[in-house]
């Protein structure tokens, strides 16, 4: 019986395992139209499963996290010869440049540190790719579909050891507010002292 089971599994497995194949260079491109249409369908599908704007944003955020967790290893292996970042500023720069460039073809415009709260950083993007063809209906004024991107950022930072919450807001285009946990800031200070 056990042997039969093993046979069944091996016959269903594809011949080459995904990890056996060489890692692609990640330079292939597709048309923006198809991406925009897919994203629009994703928003519509997500909306059909929820009732309120915040719920919809959470759903998009969750989808983004799914993407975020998957790009960490991909980009660190490809661009940084598998070395992760340990310093907060470096990590944020990695998100602003490498992550943005690879996903959206350009860097995010600005990275700022809040004056009044050292836990808070802002990543500012004038025209997020995901919002290019989205016009927000009047009755859903606060909806920002870039919460999808916020989810990506949150997953990347959190899974790299910098736990935080990231939200997207309409401000100078779209501003992603990154709020780190207290210990992240404390740890970073400790490292600097050494």
């Amino acid at each position: 019986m056990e042997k039969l089971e093993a046979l069944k599994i091996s016959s269903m497995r594809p011949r080459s395992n995904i990890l056996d194949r060489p890692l692609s260079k990640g330079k292939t491109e597709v048309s923006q139209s198809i991406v925009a249409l897919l994203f629009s369908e994703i928003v519509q599908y997500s909306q059909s499963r929820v009732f309120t704007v915040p719920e919809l944003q959470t759903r998009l955020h969750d989808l983004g996290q799914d993407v975020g967790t998957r790009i960490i290893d991909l980009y660190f292996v490809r661009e940084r010869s598998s070395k992760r970042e340990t310093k907060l500023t470096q990590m944020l720069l990695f998100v602003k440049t490498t992550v943005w460039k690879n996903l959206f073809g350009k860097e995010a415009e600005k990275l700022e540190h809040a004056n009044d709260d050292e836990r808070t950083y802002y990543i500012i993007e004038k025209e997020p790719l995901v919002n290019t063809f989205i016009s927000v209906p009047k009755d859903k004024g606060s909806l920002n579909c870039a919460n999808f991107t916020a989810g990506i950022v949150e997953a990347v930072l959190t899974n790299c050891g910098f736990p935080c919450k990231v939200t997207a807001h309409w401000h100078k285009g779209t501003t992603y507010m990154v709020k780190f946990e207290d210990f992240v800031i404390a740890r970073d200070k400790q490292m600097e002292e050494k």
Partner: protein
Amino acid sequence: MSRQASRLDAKKVNSEFLTLTYGALVTQMLRDFENAEDVNKQLERIGYNMGMRLIEDFLARTSAPRCLEMRETADRIQQAFRIYLNIQPTISNWSPASDEFSLVFDSNPLTEFVELPPDLTNLRYSAILSGCIRGALEMVQLEVQCWFVQDQLKGDNVTELRVKFVRRLEEVIPAGED
């Protein structure tokens, strides 16, 4: 002419963004429905909706004239795959009556990082493609059937999508909201 050319190389996006976003959608759907058949249906529908809107983009970009027979249609579909997904499927296995053909893909950007777990063998991961073709052709009054014959995710060497002409739609009914 220059206008034509600039229209053709429209803005590009890294294909991995598409791959991962689509992957996130499929996983979310699997969580929502827990039944691969329902997910297939949803993905097909999403593709269908995309196809209905994509055909307009395609016609505007290529200013392609009306196709008079299925062989021309096949070429157009191939061209669309090149424009939108940057892949070139091979057209093959024509039926004797020239009303049915296969699109054979060596690679598929949607499945770049994908491996199907053994319990999801009835999931048609790329169902969005068949939906897209069906939706796009319906907008130019062609009803077709479209289904997967082979799938690389299931261990086949290539992914093969079969397209079969059903009939020409005479009266165009405006696409309803469903």
